[in-house]
């Protein structure tokens, strides 16, 4: 054990937690509004990574243009996935929607593996670093936090300040009542799915500026998202962001004290503990 590593690891973990939180917000938004557990979530995170790769290495543009593009592509892809795969089974039992998104997941994995192969990829982004004493904070991590916070803020502004956002919340609260009030619930569900996917792809795009990846990299972040969503409360976006910070911090701090490969064990122990002790999550289910 070396306490000299505690501060830098805690900072690294916390910064990363914002990106985890953003990805989890996407998952929880989709669940909160549509009651669909999106098993294609991890694959959409991976697709976000490849948008950045295409923009930075393919088109030679600034990788952060890719982050913006990933959000737009994500919104469109989410709406398409909803219309094609989820809409017609939206009222079926939860297992059916689960299988529908799982099928989408497998289709994307198969296509991506064939077209892009599973070779490792990396986008070289250099944003400098802040250094003080033994602590080094990379510029890419700071930018990722700023973008993650901005994206989360924009989501909140949209959900609480705009008519469309309020309609989505109305559908989430009571779909039948919302329809009686003249809201087209199908459109809202599709939009919510699109927004959730946009968040996942944005998070993936940010991760691509931090770490190397391949077409199957989404899996790790998907399982983390599930832990975070349960931790923060199902369907609760604020809870997801806070859950992300907690998991990030936990990863950073525990890695100092115990061997790094034990960290996932701690994460899943927390997951089980929350399910046993406080199944509604720290902040409770969706408001």
């Amino acid at each position: 054990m070396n306490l000299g590593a505690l501060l830098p690891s805690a900072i690294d973990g916390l910064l990363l937690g914002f990106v985890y939180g953003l990805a989890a917000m996407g998952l929880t938004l989709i669940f909160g509004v549509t009651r669909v557990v999106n098993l294609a979530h991890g694959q959409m995170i991976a697709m976000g990574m490849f948008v950045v790769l295409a923009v930075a290495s393919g088109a030679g543009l600034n990788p952060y243009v890719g982050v913006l593009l990933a959000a737009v592509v994500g919104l469109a892809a989410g709406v398409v996935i909803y219309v094609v795969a989820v809409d017609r089974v939206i009222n079926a039992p939860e297992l059916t929607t689960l299988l529908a998104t799982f099928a989408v997941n497998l289709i994307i994995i198969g296509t991506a593996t064939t077209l892009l192969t599973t070779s490792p990829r990396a986008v070289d982004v250099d944003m400098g670093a802040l250094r003080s004493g033994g602590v080094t904070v990379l510029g890419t991590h700071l930018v990722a936090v700023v973008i993650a916070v901005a994206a989360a803020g924009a989501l909140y502004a949209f959900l609480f300040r705009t008519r469309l956002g309020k309609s989505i919340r109305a559908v989430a609260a009571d779909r039948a009542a919302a329809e009686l009030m003249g809201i087209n619930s199908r459109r809202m569900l599709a939009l919510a799915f699109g927004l959730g996917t946009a968040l996942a792809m944005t998070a993936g795009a940010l991760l691509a500026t931090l770490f190397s990846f391949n077409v199957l990299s989404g899996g790790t972040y998907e399982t983390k998202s599930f832990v975070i969503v349960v931790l923060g409360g199902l369907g609760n976006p604020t809870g997801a962001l806070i859950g992300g910070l907690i998991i990030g911090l936990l990863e950073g701090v525990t890695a100092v004290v115990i061997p790094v490969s034990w960290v996932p064990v701690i994460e899943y122990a927390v997951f089980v503990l929350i399910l046993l002790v406080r199944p509604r999550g720290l902040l409770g289910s969706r408001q």
Partner: protein
Amino acid sequence: MRGMRIMAAAAAAVLVVAACGSGTSSGPKTLKIGFTASQTGAQELTSKRQVEGIKLWADQVTKAGGIKLKDGTVLTPQLVSYDDESKTDRVQALYTKLINDDKVDFLLSPYSSGLIKAAAVVGEQNGKIMVTAGGADDATMEQGFTSIYQVYTPASQYLTGAIDLMLAMDPSIKKIAIVNEKDAFSTGVAAAAKPYAASKGLQIVVDEGYDTGTTDFGPIVNKIAAAAPDAILGGGHFQDGQTFAKAIFDKQVKAKFIALLVAPPEPTFGDIGAAANDIVGPSQWEASVAYDAKAAVAANISWYGPAVADFTAAYNAAFGSAPSYHSAGGYAAGLVLQKAIEDAGSIDPAAVRAALDKQDLLTLFGRIRFSTDAKTHGKQTAHQMVYVQWQAAADGSLSTKVVWPEAGRTAPIVPRQ
């Protein structure tokens, strides 16, 4: 009618003479060499390289008129091979077929430790001599085999050699970090490096494993930075090795020496730019290595086979690409067998085995000598890993230089800045 009979008798006589001719010691004989190639499956790319090396050796021997024995017999190598699909059960079945149906005289190996393990058991059980290339596993060669000979440096030495190099560069190094991927190969390498480091008086201040597929090295690098070691040893495979090197650079960890497995010898390792600078990596062989007859004289052993440059040029001409260490390993396996047959003066297994046991050569692949100890018989004891280091030229461009062993180096090692 009578004329016909005479003609038939004459023809028969010619046939008999011809048959006798091939039985005497003066005419060329076929030397059947069997092995499997992974034409499909996980080992496809690397196996192809190894097979190309074997083919080049056989072609060159044939063009040179075959292997000439002291009694005048000339042996022309004939390669017999099948696709093992990178599967161990196929390897077992096909090596049995090579021995029983094709009746090959000698065996070469498939590529990769796992497949070699399977092939070695079949060869050993049937008493067939097999020279292996493409497998560095220690355990396979510690089963008391009598007929299996390993050309590659065993995996356990991948980092012990790096420790020798490190201490030759800077004897004042005391604190080291060992951080490796937690797969069988890397764990085995690290497990061999730890007691060796301790025996050299080094203190291991960080001893960590990370899971296969790890991309976030932040926590590990923070730990390393806090422990402030003089050197970092470890890694695993390409992707994690490259990411790890980048993370060490980003966090400005000061270490005078960094050696990582597998990744640094790959040309694309340099894609991380300045983060690759001064990183050292072990390789079985490099095309730029300077083994030659002069080095053999200095080491008081004999030189055998073509020079490195001639091999590289011939390989390029034959296959249109530069040879990798897999190619050179395949070629060397052929050379080793050829030399043993020449020394034995026959293809009698006992005589060839005795010749292999006595062999101590310098070849384009490096020095070759086999263990004669009963338990580790056939294990490679003299071949050294080549250590490459990424070094920056005056204009800032990066390239790999061979820095160890001294007999083959193209540049001296430099401490990491």
